[in-house]
């Protein structure tokens, strides 16, 4: 036996064994029933064994096992200059913290580029909840709420300047223009007159809303509605101050107008520097059943932040069964601050502000010395209360994040994709194998073994390199099956040509491989170039396709040029066949 042949044979055997060892955990896992997996995970040793198997097996992508893929943009404008690097690191840490508490197996949170974070949560059930938990900044602040004369005098001043300036804000006007176009079909009139109609229409409708929703304030002035409206452009959109809530009610229909009015430069100018308007999270129901919201006047000064919260949990709310409330425990320093704040402000309302929304504004009845507080009300569900507690434990994000990309796959779609992908692969394999055996007979059988070797090495490499198999990845494997045959076809056609010229079997095989090798390398390398480019420019699932396609090209070249050649060389040892089944 020639030495080079021995080396080649040894190489093939070693590679096959190596691929088999690499694939063993994947095989074991795929054959393990769900019941067995559960039984194993109940004991610590079993769990360790299972973890080991999982870490060595080929990972299934989120599109195959179901789950959520999120790309988060960290808003650099919400970070202090020069601290963005630190802010992103802390954001990562806090997100990991939150997700750990949320309870997902094998979450993956990592940074991409300068200001992006990729979160992958496999096998996730409640996508909406996860998004809320991840995307919320959860900046908790305790700030004093202003009431009484502070609010009424400010409102009066706002009404005065807004009435004096005489103009509604642009955004409001354009919104009203649209309304007037709807009511008055003949809207080609001159600009000034159409604006007037618009204002009149707006006054009517807003007055109507006010009366029906909130009981109305000045019902006696119906005769001079227009005039009263003009003098009170802001308060006419609101209900009277609710003493027990410490806020002003605004109907849903009026909310955008109030927001726009408060943003006008005239309004901004008279706003005292130390306070601001914030909306409450609670949704009230107006008299007509339509929703209304609360508007609070809140100090800008922050008495205490969520940073001082040492622990947070939930317990039943005694005032509102069966709802939950969130219990906070402050750090020592926080507890002292809290005691001071409550002590100094008995009788006032303490605004609990989360991400610039007032979630609760309880009355301070007495000084609270024990360093604990509760947040009650404002929660639509128990989950919301639990999630708030969770986020307060994990901490606030140092910067705002927004979801730039999301891909969620439900578990049933993942299962279907695997089933369909595997079926397509098996059927494709069978068709291709039948075809080449029919066409090339014994040589076709050899090529079939070559195909097995190609797939074995491909899967072995996937496991070795800890790559993730995705649905496009399966498509890449299927395509490899189709294209892997190509190298064999090139060789076999060459051998046939040589045989036709009248060469001996041995000479034909030699010449066939020699001539085809150059073609195979040239042809495959160009496809390989395309696959590698795809890998570099692609994202997520596309990368999976590029990976299997490029590895498939390499392993199919190995199988055609080395594996089948070695088998022929063995067959030709000490034998001079007259005919070749090809």
């Amino acid at each position: 036996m020639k030495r080079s042949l021995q080396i080649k044979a040894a190489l093939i055997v070693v590679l096959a064994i190596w691929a088999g060892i690499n694939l063993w955990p994947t095989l074991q896992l795929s054959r393990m029933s769900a019941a067995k997996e559960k039984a194993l995970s109940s004991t610590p040793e079993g769990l360790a064994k299972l973890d080991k198997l999982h870490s060595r097996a080929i990972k299934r992508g989120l599109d195959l096992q179901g789950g959520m893929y999120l790309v988060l943009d960290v808003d650099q404008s919400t970070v202090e200059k020069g601290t963005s690097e630190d802010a992103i690191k802390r954001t990562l840490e806090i997100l990991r913290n939150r997700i750990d508490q949320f309870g997902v197996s094998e979450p993956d949170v990592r940074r991409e580029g300068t200001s992006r974070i990729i979160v992958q949560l496999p096998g996730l059930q409640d996508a909406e909840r996860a998004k809320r938990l991840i995307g919320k900044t959860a900046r908790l602040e305790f700030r004093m709420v202003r009431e009484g004369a502070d609010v009424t005098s400010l409102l009066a001043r706002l009404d005065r300047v807004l009435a004096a300036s005489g103009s509604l804000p642009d955004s409001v006007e354009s919104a009203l223009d649209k309304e007037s176009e709807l009511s008055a079909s003949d809207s080609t009139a001159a600009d000034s007159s159409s604006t007037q109609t618009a204002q009149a229409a707006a006054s009517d409708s807003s007055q109507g809303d006010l009366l029906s929703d909130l009981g109305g304030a000045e019902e006696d002035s119906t005769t001079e509605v227009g005039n009263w409206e003009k003098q009170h452009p802001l308060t006419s959109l609101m209900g009277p101050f609710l003493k027990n809530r410490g806020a002003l009610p605004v109907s849903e229909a009026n909310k955008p107008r109030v927001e726009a009015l408060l943003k006008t430069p005239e309004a901004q100018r008279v706003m005292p520097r130390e306070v601001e308007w914030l909306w409450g999270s609670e949704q009230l129901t107006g008299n007509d059943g339509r929703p209304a919201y609360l508007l609070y006047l809140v100090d800008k000064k922050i008495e205490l932040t969520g940073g001082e919260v040492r622990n947070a949990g939930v317990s039943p709310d005694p005032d509102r069964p069966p709802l939950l409330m969130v219990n906070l425990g402050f750090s020592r320093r926080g507890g002292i601050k809290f005691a001071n704040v409550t002590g100094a402000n008995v009788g006032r309302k303490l605004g609990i502000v989360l991400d610039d929304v007032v979630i609760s504004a309880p009355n301070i009845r007495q000084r609270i010395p024990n360093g604990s507080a509760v947040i009650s009300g404002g929660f639509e569900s128990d989950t919301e209360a639990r999630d708030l507690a969770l986020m307060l434990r994990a901490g606030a994000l140092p910067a705002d994040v927004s979801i730039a990309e999301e891909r969620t796959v439900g578990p049933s779609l993942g299962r279907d994709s695997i089933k369909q992908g595997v079926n397509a692969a098996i059927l494709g394999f069978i068709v291709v194998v039948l075809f080449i055996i029919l066409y090339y007979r014994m040589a076709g059988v050899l090529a079939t073994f070559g195909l097995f070797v190609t797939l074995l090495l491909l899967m072995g490499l996937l496991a070795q390199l800890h790559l993730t198999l995705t649905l496009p990845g399966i498509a890449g494997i299927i395509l490899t099956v189709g294209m892997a045959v190509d190298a064999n076809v090139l060789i076999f056609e060459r051998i046939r040509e040589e045989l036709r010229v009248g060469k001996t079997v041995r000479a034909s095989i030699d010449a066939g491989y020699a001539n085809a090798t150059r073609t195979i390398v040239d042809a495959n390398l160009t496809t390989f170039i395309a696959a590698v480019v795809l890998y570099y420019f692609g994202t997520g699932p596309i990368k999976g396709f590029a990976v299997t396609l490029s590895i498939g090209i390499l392993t199919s070249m190995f199988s055609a040029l080395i594996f089948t050649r070695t088998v022929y060389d063995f067959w030709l040892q000490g034998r001079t066949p007259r005919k070749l089944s090809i």
Partner: protein
Amino acid sequence: MQFLTDKHIDFLGKKKIAAMISLALILAGVVSLIVKHGPLLSIDFRGGSIVELRISPAPEVSQVRSALADGGIKVSQVTTFGGPEEVLIYVDKLDEAETVTGKHQTVQSVVAKALPDHQVELRREETVGPKIGEELRKGATNAIFVSLVLIVLYITFRFVFHFGLAAVLTLVHDVLITLGLFSLMNKEISLSIVAAFLTIIGYSLNDTIVVFDRIRENMRLRRKESYEEVVNRSINETLSRTIITSLTTVFVAFILYLIGGAVIHDFAFALTVGVVVGTYSSIYVASPLVILWYKWRSSDRKRGKRGALA
């Protein structure tokens, strides 16, 4: 078993017919692309949201549409996807309902509430922000452009420049026809379709190079034949390989199209079309282009100069 043992088909004699077929296909696609203002881009590239629900028993699409309208969710399109129970919803702005104080209504919960006697299950949800869409668009264009440049470089290095040029023109031909067909059939171009295009590029090139490789070889061996004869002979000699490989690849691509599932349906469709077009073009487009270039460069077709080109 063997097909095509007697291989003396005059492929190049039919190059005018082939040119007309190619031009007609490209023209139809290009007209469609112009009329529809470019290719129909999926949310991967233009940004937006889709939600796929499985609703059993199968609902009327109009039921789902009115349920969403009543729930205050603005949608641009509701279609079935793969089967009557699978409903694909294009949501204008998924997070619009999620104001600070407003209640966030999910598409799934709205539909489930409106169709109480149906089971509603979330199959898939994808949201791509406008910024990411823009980046993906750039990435995809770059990927195609970079791979074409690298391929010209590789072929120039291994063969000669005008082979590389002919190969790339052939690839442009293949992708244009497939792109045009997608536009004619109102199919969306998504990230995975771009992946299919790149695979087509790789595959078609594979085919073209096998023919070029044979031309290169025959140039050396058959110095007495004319350039055209050599090219035609090379096509014929590689024909059975071209057909066998195309068949196996089309088989698997078509199987993927038939049973691979709705998610990769369009991807497999692009591959199937691309492989057929790629096979056709490596015979009828790439080789005539090589000859065209050759004739253009040397009005006298004497043998002496030919050696330099091959």
